[in-house]
């Protein structure tokens, strides 16, 4: 009997260890990024953030990268919200089972589509299209389109969950008053589901900001991204900067530290977005 108890306790401790390991992994990643990137971040705070990125001249300015990363991310988010939110409303309220069974699985597959494949598709077709019609080439617009496709399923499925989570009594009360489905959706469901939809948008933004391979292949990888709102210009984002330059750096050099500094800034941006999302969701739940 006692041996049995001991065994149970040991198993519980092992399982606890497994669960706690994820805390360890996150802390490990955070510490690694902070330790390697801290000198560069300190430098940015001491001597200014800088406007040019030029490793050959030992210049590592991060302002253009912060701008272009957010610009690309927000544009992609808006683009996918235009299709994603109506799609979520359709799935939650209007869809017949037949179409729903087609849309849901394809959204799920779109979520996991290898980003490198999507990037190649963008480079081969979307960039050709843009070059043919605008005279531009790889650039912000192509990145918007490809990232928009990538974050479409996130927005659609999370917003759908948010709309579905609206209590049934509200829906029924509205329908009982003689409102049509659309009137119910606009006047009752969407106001209640607003925090959830906002959370979906922020999560999609975080995903778009953290995406690497699809962006690197369509954005044109200019070494210092321009601070302008022209969507046809080639640009660059933080993730693709890291993916391009990690191979050339030597440990301990300023370039290495700056690259980790960029990683740190990226980590902070995405972390802030995630925490904001969670705040919005938990506040709406506690209401």
């Amino acid at each position, binding site marked *: 009997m006692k041996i049995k108890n001991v065994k*149970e306790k040991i198993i*519980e401790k*092992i*399982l*606890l260890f*497994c669960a706690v390991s*994820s805390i360890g*992994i996150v802390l490990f*990643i955070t510490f*690694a*990024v902070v330790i*390697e990137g801290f000198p560069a971040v300190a430098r940015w705070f001491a001597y200014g953030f800088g406007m040019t990125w030029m490793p050959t001249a030992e210049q590592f300015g991060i302002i253009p990268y912060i701008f272009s990363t957010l610009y690309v991310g927000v544009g992609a988010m808006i683009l996918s919200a235009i*299709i994603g939110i*109506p*799609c979520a409303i*359709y799935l939650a309220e*209007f869809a017949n089972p037949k179409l729903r069974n087609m*849309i849901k699985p*394809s959204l*799920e*597959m*779109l979520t*996991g*589509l*290898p*980003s*490198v*494949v*999507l990037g*190649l598709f963008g*480079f*081969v*077709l979307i960039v*050709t*299209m843009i070059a*043919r*019609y605008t005279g531009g080439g790889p650039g912000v617009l192509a990145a918007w389109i490809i990232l928009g*496709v990538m974050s*479409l399923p996130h927005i*659609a499925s999370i917003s759908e969950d948010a709309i579905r989570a609206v209590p049934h009594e509200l829906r029924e009360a509205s329908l009982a008053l003689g409102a049509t*489905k*659309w*009137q119910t*959706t606009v006047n009752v469901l969407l106001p209640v589901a607003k925090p959830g939809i906002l959370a979906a948008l922020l999560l999609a933004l975080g995903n778009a*900001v*953290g*995406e*690497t*391979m699809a962006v690197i*292949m369509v954005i044109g990888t200019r070494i210092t991204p321009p601070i302008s709102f022209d969507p046809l210009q080639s640009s660059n984002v933080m993730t693709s900067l*890291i*993916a391009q330059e*990690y191979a050339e750096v030597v*440990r301990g050099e300023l370039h290495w530290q700056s690259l980790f500094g960029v*990683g740190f800034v*990226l*980590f902070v941006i*995405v972390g802030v*977005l*995630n925490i904001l999302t969670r705040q919005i969701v938990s506040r709406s739940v506690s209401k």
Partner: protein
Amino acid sequence: MRITKLWFKFYSYLRKRKKGNFVASALMSGSSIVSASFGVMHLINALNLWFSSSSLWGPSFNIIMADSLVAIILILPSFAMFLTAYLLMEAHSKGILLSSFFALAFFALALLGIMSFGSGLIMGVFSALAASTGFVTRLKNPTKRVDSPIVTENLAKFSLRFSGIICVGVLVFIVAYIGVRGVKYVSWDFITSQWISWRHAGNVVSGVIDAPLGGLFAYIVGSFLLCSLCEVIAIPLGLGAAIFLAEYASENILTKTIRFFIETLAGIPSIVIGLVGFAFLCTRLNMGRSLLAGAISLAFMILPWNIRVAEESMKAVPNSYREASYGLGATKWQTIRHMVLMSSMPGILTGILLGLGGAIGETAVVMLTAGDTGVTQMPNNIALTGTAIPTLPVWIYGAYQSLFSFQGEAGQGVWEGQNASLGGSFVLLVVFLVISITSLIARNHFLKRLSGK
């Protein structure tokens, strides 16, 4: 017979409407048809160009695809205008608003020179006339001042369904495009041979480049090894964490913290995980870019997915199962092992497959920690550390990079190079689709069984 019936229905529908509404709607439809003709003309032009080019299957195919996409975008406004015509017919106030908006937009586009002046003017005048006719009719009929909610409902249903169909269309289009262009390269030779020279991509470019386009065998094996090792690390850890969270833990500060960190881990950009793996595992721990470093970093990435799905499926197991097991005198661990794990197995499998699907397509982490585009062959003796390994996604990235070396060549070289890299993408896509469809089926099966059907 059927057609006459339909026509009669349509006719009686029109008879019931006011004349002014009918005229306004007809004007708007005319404007819509003019607008749609832009897209259709564009498509006809593109087809004409395509058929007159020397070979249908070449760079011109890409151009016709691009033109068709643009034609679809050009046709979209005419859809919106057609819906406006429907609103005008039903004497809906939004119809008047929308048609005046279209009138203003077309006048502006014509004046700014974005579209040709004549056609912009024609469409603008049509829309303006439609708006004013609709407005006057509405003024004349004081009884018909309330918008019918059913009309709005129909309109909403139609537009929302359209957005849903776009979601499906995007996926189908991407897969079909890659398949159509890449499938020529997907042969048994392409997949199994250790090395096919770049001659395969047409004689034009032979000798221009020697790496990394070639037989995919080494890359497929490398991806397979990496993902298996990654799952070997992630499954016990993820399953353990999921069992703890679902079965042992009560909602206290510890579980809240654990959940917070799992969510955070899921949100960390993959490139940051790759960078940390590169700095610590490859450089500090001296593993080099290798199987083990790559597998550990990938496991960090897919761990949250494994945990989340496994926990959800364990929580979906009815409590009566557990109680029955306790009633027979089983301990907690025995209950979990024999009842909970067994009955939630398909759900757990779904999570594992989901992670596998993510891991097999992940490029950033793999490139930084397991082997970059310079690796073209499987090492002779595969070791856990020290030797970089080739993988399929990194092959695709390398193929993309090598496309730039053809830019000076004839268009055919670029075209064939793109086809070859799309062939590799198609192989990866098929592997991914097989994994994700299997996981979808497993989940549906699981949900059906739990609901007792």
